[in-house]
């Protein structure tokens, strides 16, 4: 018995558990930074069960917690895989040796833009980012977008403005080694707009702090 063999047995055990208690999920493996949930990235159907970091299944998840443990056949999974099923959408954040598989529950679908980049020398166009001159670097990725505690005054200061919240964004590693930077613009499918304040690439994927940026 060695670590590799033991790891295989652990994942076999997860697979056997998932056979009994798991629900069917479509498993996707993103191949590019665009539309990870598509027929081209579909790996197959897999049984999986997610719990609120409690293998005894004695407590439910609550607000503000994106991390779940995943019981599924780890031998056919990879970090960054998306699982889409009736309970929701998850991406696999970590598969650390002999430790539970961590997954992130996704509540939004986001697109990340790089603000206007002026190339060349000499006279160039007006300097300022707009929705027309920014470039999408990550498109259509399900992600966890949860409220952070902080909030800032709106820069526009309209009479009806309130303080604008800071948010935490969790994304898997993006294929193609896409690097997300501060000042990148994030939008989601419900029309919210954010600007990245800090982006940290960890072994669990991207952990990003961003400020809501609207009028």
């Amino acid at each position: 018995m060695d670590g590799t063999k033991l790891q295989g047995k652990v994942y076999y055990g997860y697979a056997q558990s998932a056979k009994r208690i798991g629900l069917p999920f479509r498993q996707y493996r993103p191949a590019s930074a665009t539309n990870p949930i598509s027929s081209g990235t579909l790996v197959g159907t897999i049984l999986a069960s997610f719990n609120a970091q409690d293998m005894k299944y004695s407590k439910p998840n609550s607000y503000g917690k994106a991390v779940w443990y995943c019981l599924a056949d780890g031998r056919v999974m990879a970090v960054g895989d998306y699982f889409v099923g009736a309970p929701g959408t998850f991406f696999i954040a970590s598969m650390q040796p002999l430790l539970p598989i961590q997954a992130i529950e996704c509540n939004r679908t986001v697109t990340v833009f790089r603000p206007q980049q002026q190339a060349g020398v000499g006279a160039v166009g007006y300097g300022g980012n707009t929705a027309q001159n920014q470039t999408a670097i990550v498109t259509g990725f399900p992600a966890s977008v949860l409220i952070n505690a902080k909030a800032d005054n709106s820069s526009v200061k309209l009479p009806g403005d309130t303080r604008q919240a800071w948010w935490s964004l969790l994304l898997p590693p993006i294929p193609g080694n896409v690097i997300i930077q501060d000042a990148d613009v994030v939008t989601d499918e419900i029309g919210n707009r954010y600007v990245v304040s800090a982006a940290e690439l960890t072994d669990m994927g991207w952990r990003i702090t961003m400020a809501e940026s609207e009028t």
Partner: protein
Amino acid sequence: MADVVDVMSALVAAMAQVIYPNGTAQPSVTGLATVIYAGWPQSSQLDKDLAAFNTGGGRVHVTVYATGTEKNTTRYSTDWLQLTQPAQTVTLVVAGQTITVGGTVSVPQNTAILVNGLPYTYAVQANDTLTTIATALAVQIPGASNTGPVITLPATARIQAGRVGGAGTMFREVRRQQRAVQLTIWADTPAHREATAQAIDVALAATEFVTLSDQTAARIIYQSSRLDDGTQKANLYRRDLIYSVEYATTQTSAATTVTVAQENLHTGVSGSSATTSSQTTYQ
């Protein structure tokens, strides 16, 4: 009366004519859907409209708001001036010993007949007819009677005049002030902002006066402009055009026609404390 709210409304109307010279059903001069109003944008609406440019919709917002910068420039006479003339639609025609009430009935109007140096007046009521007016006058005059709208007076009556008066309006300027008004363009790109700002700015620069709701004219003069790119983080490019607007605060009052003048005379000897009886004449 003209108020700062009227100034804002007049500027909104003026800019709407500039942006949509052929009506809002036709394309704007900038080619951009534009909404113009007094006050401030609602952030959720503004976000939606600015973001929608990327999906084929979208609206530029133009707002008007009076700043707190104001100067009292009162300098003209406060005399009353006629604003609208009284409308007299009832007639009194004297022929021999008869007076005929004619025309059409409308209010407010006053009728008056001077007979033998005494006035007989009647204020026309909304439900009157020519006959009821004639009746109301005839019953006051000794010996007079009427048949329909024709009043017949005794042969001894000396008819001096039959008069009809109405009610007009007059107004006067009670104050004048110069107020800095901020016209703000809220756009999603610098290009959309400048297209809108230039259309408005050039047209307003060529406009000396805008007419307010009380028909007085407000003088508009360009004062300053400010570009604000600091909000691009929120997908917003803003430009403020500051115009100085000088307008009058006016007061309006109803003015009723005088149909009978009453003159009271007191006579006495200079240096004497003895009083005399007064004498009243009507003209």
